[in-house]
């Protein structure tokens, strides 16, 4: 009998096809998501080698990065973006893969639609040519991002060559306070362990604060595991997980559901399972978080001030901080709540789901976006958009002066027409504040949907706890 195992160990062990002498494993991949940016060269590789897709039904494709979030009827204006999306449509037709086109209500960000359709299931291995594939770990699936060569490898063989990861446990004890949510939890964690803090590890999130999160909140946390350097994030499935999945189009039906659910409930780390690293967080002590620099680890509570590079832990970090502050146009010692913003972006695979929009709408309801701010809400999928509209959230946003857009990745990475101008400062619910991420010279502050809505209303970085629901 093997000793006590972690959830990661169990999923891994259940997917090993072959082990080589040096420990490299051939791992079976149950589900593969494909988008237009990282797949063209993979399909081209298959074509050149005369290879087919081994299990087309295990792959789901959608265009999300390049799609416009304004009027779709006009198509895609940018020729290169259009070619990339058209190329995906041609490839999926040739290789027999399910595809949600731009005019399909099910179209959306790949990491929103996988869970939404029930394509994402507990205990499975899921990959996508996209680092935020870690999102799907919220369901207790081992989900990670891969490069295009690996996309081709999975298409051709339904497997990947991998080495086992180390196990990290993040336990968030206590109850999150008012105005503090999943995004604050994960940002604070990244601030604590750093962007390379979990390199080589798969993180399992546990503890009272994690258990209390909705599936949307859990997805936000797992989504940003990659920003802590982790290969993947995991949360053991429970009643919340099963309640979210039941009835979704691609989940097992009737008797198979009961059989699957019984299996999924066994997907927990055993008592006494060994973790290589354990980190505990006091969730009750957390405040709303906001980034000040150009790495997700550059994060502080909103009550803080822009830090001084002179206090950096080492020379390399000091130089990085100086560069960040110069890029961000910030002076050490400035209270974060005095930093004005010109743009607000609510959306992305981190925070473009219905709970995120509800959270932002609760702050926006009955208030007005500041005159100095341009604010947009981009739902994560057509179905999220439809749900939000059925709840009247679109009207809340429109009445407050937000733009209400069509679904896609949008200004998270500005591959479509939505982008910041040089030196524009943005309160964003996305996942990366890297230099140029949202547009050349653009300045990104990462935060929760509620905090982004508060920034839109006040025209500056703001503490959402000072804007209780009207």
């Amino acid at each position: 009998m093997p000793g006590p195992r972690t959830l990661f160990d169990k999923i891994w062990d259940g997917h090993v096809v072959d082990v080589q002498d040096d420990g490299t494993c051939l791992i079976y991949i149950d589900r593969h998501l494909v988008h237009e940016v990282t797949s063209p060269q993979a399909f081209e590789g298959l074509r050149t080698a005369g290879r087919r897709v081994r299990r087309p039904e295990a792959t789901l494709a959608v265009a999300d990065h390049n799609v416009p979030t304004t009027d779709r009827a006009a198509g895609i204006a940018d020729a290169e973006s259009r070619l990339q999306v058209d190329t995906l449509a041609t490839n999926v037709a040739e290789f027999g893969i399910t595809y949600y086109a731009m005019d399909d209500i099910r179209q959306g960000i790949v990491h929103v639609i996988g869970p939404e359709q029930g394509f994402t299931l507990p205990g499975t291995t899921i990959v996508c040519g996209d680092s935020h594939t870690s999102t799907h770990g919220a369901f207790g699936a081992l989900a990670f991002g891969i490069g295009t060569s690996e996309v081709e490898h999975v298409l051709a063989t339904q497997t990947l060559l991998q080495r086992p990861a180390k196990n990290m446990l993040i336990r968030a004890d206590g109850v999150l306070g008012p105005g503090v949510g999943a995004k604050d939890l994960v940002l604070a964690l990244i601030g604590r362990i750093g962007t390379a803090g979990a390199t080589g590890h798969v993180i399992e999130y546990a503890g009272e604060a994690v258990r209390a999160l909705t599936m949307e909140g859990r997805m936000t946390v797992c989504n940003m595991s990659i920003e802590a350097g982790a290969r993947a994030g995991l949360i053991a499935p429970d009643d919340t997980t099963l309640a979210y999945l039941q009835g979704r189009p691609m989940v097992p039906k009737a008797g198979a559901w009961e059989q699957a659910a019984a299996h999924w409930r066994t997907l927990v780390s055993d008592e006494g399972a060994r973790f290589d690293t354990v980190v505990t967080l006091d969730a009750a002590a957390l405040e709303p978080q906001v980034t000040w620099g150009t790495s997700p680890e550059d994060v502080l509570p909103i009550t803080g001030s822009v830090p001084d590079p002179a206090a950096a832990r080492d020379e390399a970090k000091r130089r990085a901080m100086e560069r960040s502050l110069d890029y961000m146009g910030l002076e050490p010692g400035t209270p974060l709540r005095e930093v004005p913003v010109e743009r607000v972006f609510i959306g992305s695979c981190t925070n473009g789901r219905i709970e995120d929009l509800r959270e932002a709408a609760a702050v926006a309801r009955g208030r007005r976006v500041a005159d100095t701010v341009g604010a947009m809400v981009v739902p994560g999928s057509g179905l999220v958009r439809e749900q939000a509209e059925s709840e009247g959230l679109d009207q809340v946003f429109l009445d407050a002066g937000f733009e209400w857009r069509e679904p896609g990745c949008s200004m998270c990475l500005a591959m479509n027409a939505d982008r910041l101008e040089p030196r524009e400062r943005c309160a964003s619910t996305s996942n990366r504040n890297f230099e140029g991420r949202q547009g050349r010279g653009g300045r990104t502050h990462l935060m929760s949907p509620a905090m982004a809505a508060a920034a839109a209303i006040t025209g500056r970085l703001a503490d959402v706890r000072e804007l209780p629901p009207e």
Partner: protein
Amino acid sequence: MEKFTTLTGVAAPLPMINVDTDMIIPKQFLKTIRRSGLGGSLFYELRYGDDGAEKPEFVLNQPAYRQATILVTGDNFGCGSSREHAPWALLDYGIRCIIAPSFADIFYNNCFKNGILPIALPQSDVDKLMDDAERGANATVTVDLESQTIRGPDGGTLHFDIDPFRKHCLLNGLDDIGLTMQKAPRIDDFEARQRAEVPWLYR
């Protein structure tokens, strides 16, 4: 994939931590449907000003480093997105080896698929190579994959670690997919077993 055996070349110093893949190749260049031609856009925003002119202070714009084939850099190189366009751009520019204290996992994997050797060394060794690299075109470094050594301009050698399988594939320029296809019977067996155990995964 081109083999990697030994490489002798100029090492360019890039003493920055957390160099992310957006920095290596920004999103506007991800719209390509090809692998080639990205070298001119490598490190685009570090390398070119708003007007498109080269920034003379950036290392790869300096005459001594224009022909660099090795990059010596800081912790957590290649963090961020999974875009394989990052190693494609490095390779297209001519960089075949990157030396850093640590790499982000996906970028590290992607390098091996493209005949690029990423070498993780202790900070003190990287500091030494960084000093060497800052000496310009005189700082020729030789990387020998077979013996897993780096020989600096002053003749000193450093040892590095690498997984045996990755080493084997790089040395021989092997395509992973071809190797895995040879294991098709094992994949068939796995699927038959899984179909019996968790039938709901097969629709």
